[in-house]
């Protein structure tokens, strides 16, 4: 089992969710995060002084999957999350972490059953 963490552009959330459901990944957890990467931020100002906003709003997805689902999930996120054909800086990253156990609180089921 793996925990897939993906950081994507906020406005790609719908497309990624769609792409994920195409590969039958229906469960996920969404977090509002802020990203600091190669993408430059924008400048705000307030009463005459610039504010460099270099932390940009991003969305993080956390998806627990069985090992078989890892590649389809990655492919779906890339498909839904890439801007245009070329992609753009700031499109984000996917991290895959090993996961030892999964428990469904409602039933107490464990392992791949519970995902």
């Amino acid at each position: 089992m793996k925990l897939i963490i993906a950081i994507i552009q906020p406005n790609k959330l719908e497309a990624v969710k769609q792409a994920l459901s195409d590969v039958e990944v229906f469960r996920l957890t969404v977090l509002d995060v802020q990203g600091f990467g190669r993408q430059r931020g924008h400048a705000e100002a307030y009463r005459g002084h610039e504010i460099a906003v270099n932390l940009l709003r991003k969305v993080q997805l956390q998806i627990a999957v069985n090992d078989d689902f890892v590649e389809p999930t990655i492919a779906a996120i890339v498909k839904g999350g890439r801007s245009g054909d070329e992609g753009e800086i700031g499109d984000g990253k996917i991290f895959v972490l090993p996961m030892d156990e999964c428990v469904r609180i409602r039933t107490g089921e464990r392992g791949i059953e519970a995902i």
Partner: protein
Amino acid sequence: MAADTVWVLVCGMLVFFMNLGFGCVESGFARSKNAVNILSKNFVVFAATTLAYWLFGWDLMFGAGDGAWIGNSGSWMVGGLDNSPAVGDKYQGVYGALSWASVPLWTKFFFQLVFAGTAATIVSGAVAERIKYHAFVIFSFLMALVIYPVTGHWVWGFGWLAKDWNFWDFAGCTAVHSVGGWAALTGALILGPRIGKYGSDGRVHAIPGHNMMAAFIGCLVLWFGWFGFNPGSTFGVAADGGALAAQVAVNTNMAAAAATLTATLTAWLLLGKPDIGMTLNGCLAGLVGITACAAFTNITCSAIIGAIAGVLVVLSVLFFDKMRVDDPVGATSVHLVCGIFGTLCVGLFTTSDLTGTVANTPFGWAAVGGPSAGLFFGGGTKQLIAQLVGVLAVGAYVVPVSAVAWLIIKAVVGLRVAPQEEIEGLDIGEHGNEAYHGFVMVRTE
């Protein structure tokens, strides 16, 4: 009379205060990423109006011109002759259309100015969340300079509608609200809908407003301000001890109350739950609806007018969405649709023949009086036809003229922000500011 001046000035202040109401309603009904932009627009619009209406608008609207298309005969910057508060025969000056009001010139100007501001600010909501800041400011300036004053002259400047048709519009269903509404509709059409509002699948996507507290505050401030808008339009209290002003206040309130209730119920029945947005829009619909005949009808008819307006506005909001006219705050439904409806109500609900009744009320022109009795009060269709002519004439002027204004602005400075800016929000793009710094906002807002 000093009491008249106090009355008109205080009522004018209340109308000014409606700027706060419009700003809060419109920004509350929009997304937080555009809040600074909307608040800025609504703030600056009154400043621009002040300048334009002072420079030329007032003179265009009220300068001598009985029965004419425009009022001006050379004066500008409120520079024409005038010996207000002298009234009737004693009045000498170029602003004769307001000579029946026994208040000093600057009192009249102040009250008319805040009305011009209202017309201009109505536009703001319909074009929100996509229009360039300076494009809107320029349009507002033109609105108060040459769009609003021309039809204003027809209606209140003793121009052709008033003189030849005995068209009546007590406090501005047509002169203010429809004018604003037509300009708003034209702008919304030329701009096109916001990104994401109408799906390619034909579905309409709700774009929820970000702050119902602000919308509530704004709407109650508008209701409050309307007690200046309508009762203040009597332009005085001395002649009748304030009886008409009080009647107008009660009529106004009754229509707002009835409309609030019917809009809430209509939304409840049609949509399953009592949507707060519809409740608030309903209230405004009732206020607009009663504006034209608040001085000509009674409290029961006011309740009926309000009740109809409340239903009308909900249907209209749904209708415009079906037509894919994207008006984020429902300005067109409230001000244009109910403005037209209210104007026609003069021809339906005027309770008795008021032509030549000037002596009894502080309101009216020496030579004219008021509307004939409405259809429901035995007056036949005479007044109704006059009202219809007024509605059509004003639309026929405002739509093309504002379309031209919008298109010129589009050609010269551009009208709509870039799609990327629209998605990220106009606050950063146009102003470099955030409305709620330090609050966490969710992803796609």
